[in-house]
């Protein structure tokens, strides 16, 4: 399943890198402790977080995540968005909670 499919089905708001929505999402990870995300997430994951510091871009880039979802309508800091655009990391915002968006994506991925 691609980022575009997920974004469309869950009505997510993509903030940058709309040219990269053909990326395939292979799994997901939820976490706000970036040390934990570095240690335990995998390449191809869609990462759901409430953290909006610009270090999330570096972590997503390092771990080759498909995208970062900011839950509960969390808007990224300006410099986070700028860095994500520069580094080609799609940033996505949803008004859903982390629990809900993770559940919905899990459902989509396991059904597909």
């Amino acid at each position: 399943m691609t980022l575009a499919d997920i974004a469309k089905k869950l009505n997510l708001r993509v903030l940058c890198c709309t040219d990269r929505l053909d990326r395939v999402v292979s799994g997901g990870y939820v976490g706000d402790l970036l040390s934990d995300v570095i240690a335990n997430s995998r390449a191809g994951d869609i990462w759901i977080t409430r953290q909006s510091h610009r270090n999330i871009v570096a972590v997503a880039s390092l771990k080759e995540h498909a995208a970062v979802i900011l839950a509960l309508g969390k808007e990224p800091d300006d410099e986070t968005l700028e860095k994500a655009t520069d580094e080609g990391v799609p940033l996505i915002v949803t008004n859903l909670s982390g629990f809900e968006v993770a559940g919905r994506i899990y459902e989509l991925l396991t059904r597909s």
Partner: protein
Amino acid sequence: MPALKKYRCDLHIHTCLSPCADLDMYPRALVAGSIKAGLDVIGICDHNAAENAGYVMSAADGKGLTVLPGMEITSREEVHILSLFENVEPLYTLQKIVYEALPGVNDENVFGCQAIVNEHDEVEGVSEKLLIGSTTLSLETIVETVHDLGGIVIAAHVDRESFGIIGQLGFIPDTLSLDALEVSYRTNPAEFMKKFPELSRYPFITSSDAHRIEDIGRACTVLEIRQPTIEECLKAFGGSAGRRIVEP
């Protein structure tokens, strides 16, 4: 100018204003505990609050113990940052900024009492703010604000996953102008740097993060400086003009 001398410094101590600290940590008891622990300099860093710092300074007056008033601020990334000043005026300015950015009201049955106690052991009041919470201030804003006010900025207990900068953010952004990093009493800089060799560019201190009298001085930093001031501490962190961090 005074000669270089070694000062034993515990720059991260809470008072009974912090909801998670013992009520026994009132200014006079805290000063007595610090002297008993053989300290020359202490830093008062309550969570997001400063109301007791001045009272600790008064309680230490004439006792040969220097008190640097400060605050342990929680950034919106949930990172704990220590700030230290030479006197309370800039700290009170910081307090205003922090309180405006700190939502919520404390429930002392859940989080603990936040007592403001003077140097005569009299309760002056309580802070109603949710001091255990996070401010809406970014890490970058906090560092800049404290520096503008003439204070020093130290990332607290960087070895701890919860509320430590590396646990929260994975690594330290290289654009952040931290004056030093603090490791907790659980480890030491040499041990810590085995895991994070890239952080050797920072000066390291260690402190007790005491929330109870008996924990005061369980870890401390020895600085060789001319006098216990913010400027001299910064020189020691930078290793300039003969000032240095002797331990850890």
